[in-house]
């Protein structure tokens, strides 16, 4: 295991700047997930770390060594690709041992390593098969095995699960996490799936258009997103963004939630880390997660942070444990997560409770969060 320090990396393909100054400092044995929409430059960054592409400027350090000009094979990294990239002409055993053979590892040691890795990933029975004779999940294991066999300082994963079906994906996710807890090798894991990012990561780096938007623990990223993009990207269903104007009413600053022609509710915004006095009479965007608008909360009696509103139900989406209710607030579609027993039918009015203890406020022009951003 080794730390990985990336300083102000830039990468251009022709005139298109794909990475615009990326800096990340990753600790030894940390599991970092790089998440972002397709085409934002995640794979490019991973290829740069692996040395498969050359950087235009910046510095990459593995441990204490600058590796800008080091060949991929000498960087002591291993990579797992989305397409698995197994050598189609070799059987599983050869696939696992190829990297060791090119490094001139003694034969008996190769045998030992291959057996060990095959045991660990439960692919011992598949050793003599060709990749074409394996299922998707088995290929995925072999691809991981090939990386493991090398015992590198850093693992790079490029969307390793996105070609698997949903059930297998969840299973493999858990296995990867258990594997990391066991071997403790530094991992940089790329995905476009925010659930994968949340469940796997020690820290998440959210990327958009070649820029890191936020680099923090999953809980921090969820509770304290630094801008609208991160807030909307993390969490499913995504956070509701309600355009509002800040007003002052009886010593309280807050916003109006208008839920119908004649129904509107004043919601005071009080967070110790947030003062909206400078924003009075100005437009803001209020960010509320679906689970913060519910049919009721535990210990809600007398809680000053919980406010009641009446809304007209537009659509219902039962998910099983909860039902998603869609309503209109300030002419914006808002998702609420309510108890299935409390959900009203479309067209009916429904009493909803809004918990504003975790409410977020964003500047509509800069798209940044207002207040003390951690």
């Amino acid at each position, binding site marked *: 295991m080794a730390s990985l320090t990336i300083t102000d990396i830039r990468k251009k393909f022709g005139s298109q700047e794909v990475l615009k100054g990326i800096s990340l400092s990753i600790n030894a044995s940390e599991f970092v997930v790089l998440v972002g929409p397709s085409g934002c430059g995640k794979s490019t960054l991973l*290829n740069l770390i*692996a040395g*498969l592409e050359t950087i235009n400027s910046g510095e990459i350090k593995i441990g204490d060594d600058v590796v800008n000009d080091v060949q*991929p*094979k000498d960087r002591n*990294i*291993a*990579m797992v*690709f*989305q*397409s698995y*990239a*197994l*050598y*189609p*002409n*070799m059987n599983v055993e050869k696939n696992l041992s*190829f*990297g060791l053979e*090119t*490094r001139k590892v003694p034969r008996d040691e190769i045998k030992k390593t291959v057996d060990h890795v095959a045991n660990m990933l439960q692919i011992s029975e598949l050793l003599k098969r060709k990749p*074409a*004779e394996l299922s998707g999940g088995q290929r995925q294991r072999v691809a991981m095995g*090939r990386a493991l066999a*090398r015992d590198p300082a850093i693992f790079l994963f490029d969307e390793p699960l996105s070609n698997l079906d949903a059930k297998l994906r969840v299973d493999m996710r858990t296995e990867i996490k258990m594997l990391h807890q066991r071997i403790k090798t530094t991992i940089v894991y790329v995905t476009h799936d925010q659930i994968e990012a949340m469940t796997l990561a020690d820290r998440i780096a959210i990327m958009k258009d070649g820029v890191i938007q936020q680099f923090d623990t999953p809980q921090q990223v969820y509770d304290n997103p630094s801008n609208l993009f991160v807030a909307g990207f993390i969490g499913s269903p995504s956070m509701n963004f309600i355009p509002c104007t800040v007003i002052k009413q009886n010593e309280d600053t807050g916003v109006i939630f208008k839920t119908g022609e004649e129904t509107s509710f004043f919601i005071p915004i009080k967070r110790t880390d947030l003062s909206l006095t400078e924003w009075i009479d100005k437009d803001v965007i209020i960010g509320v997660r679906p689970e913060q608008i519910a049919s009721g909360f535990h210990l809600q009696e007398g809680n000053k942070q919980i406010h009641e509103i009446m809304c007209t139900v537009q659509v219902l989406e039962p998910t099983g444990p909860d039902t998603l209710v869609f309503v209109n607030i300030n002419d914006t579609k808002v998702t609420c997560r309510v108890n299935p027993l409390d959900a009203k039918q479309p067209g009916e009015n429904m009493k909803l409770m809004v918990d504003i203890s975790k409410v977020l406020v964003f500047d509509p022009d800069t798209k940044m969060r207002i207040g003390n951003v951690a």
Partner: protein
Amino acid sequence: MGKETSKANDKKLRNIKFRNRLGNLIPKIMIAPTFTVSLVCVYGFILWTIWISFTSSKILPKYDFVGFEQYNILFTQEPRWWVASLNLFIFSGLFIAICIALGLTLAIFIDQRLRGEGVFRTIYLYPMALSFIVTGTAWRWIMNPSLGLERLVQQLGFSDFTFRLLVESNVAIYAVVIAAVWQSTGFMFALFIAGLRGIDNSIIKAAQIDGASLKKIYLRIIIPSLRPVFLSAVIILLHLSIKCFDLVMALTSGGPGYSTDMPATFMYAFAFNRGRLAFGAASAVIMFITVMAIIIPYLYTELKGTRNAR
């Protein structure tokens, strides 16, 4: 009134039935002529040829039965057949090996994202657009001592230069190889470049990380995974060389003497020029058996392959 409508309905129903039946019949009617023609002209005449080869037919077919006599003559008393067979062996061996080697090399170089790839591809593929007759004629002129290369170089001042591939009977077969290679290399190139492009780029990345040099990546991973392409290439070139008739006719007409005869030209010469129909048929049957011996295992492995693939 009720009766009338039911009658009208009946008529309508019959009409629909008739149309349906016609609709079902039309495809069959359309296919029937070509089906019959190919049944008779291809498979029928194959059988007829086999039959004729067991007779003593000369210029005209004669339906007696002489057993394996023609085959016996072919293999024991006709040196020209052995020349033709040896020629086929030399020709197909060299033709296949050189075409594949050149085509693969070109494909590998151009796969390195060379500039002007489109131009190269057009240049290499262009000969394929010509028929073997045109290729043969063009190369006959190029290799003709008094018209082509030899004369050109001598006119340039190198008066000792000789290029007599086409007129020396012990090497003339190599002239046929050169012309055939020129014609077919482009096709091999196209086949291999398609194969190379089909290889997932991340396989190469994975091999780089695994520490393999570019040479090793090609030798150990890329070329071995082109195995199906090699198989197709060999089959295509092999059947081209067994069928090779027009190129030899245009380039050498089997000469000098019968030194560049191939089984196909041999068959033509005996069956049609010399009026030994049964003898020609016997040589044709041997060719047929050879082709089948190659094609059937190929089809077998191919079909097995697709059954296994997912």
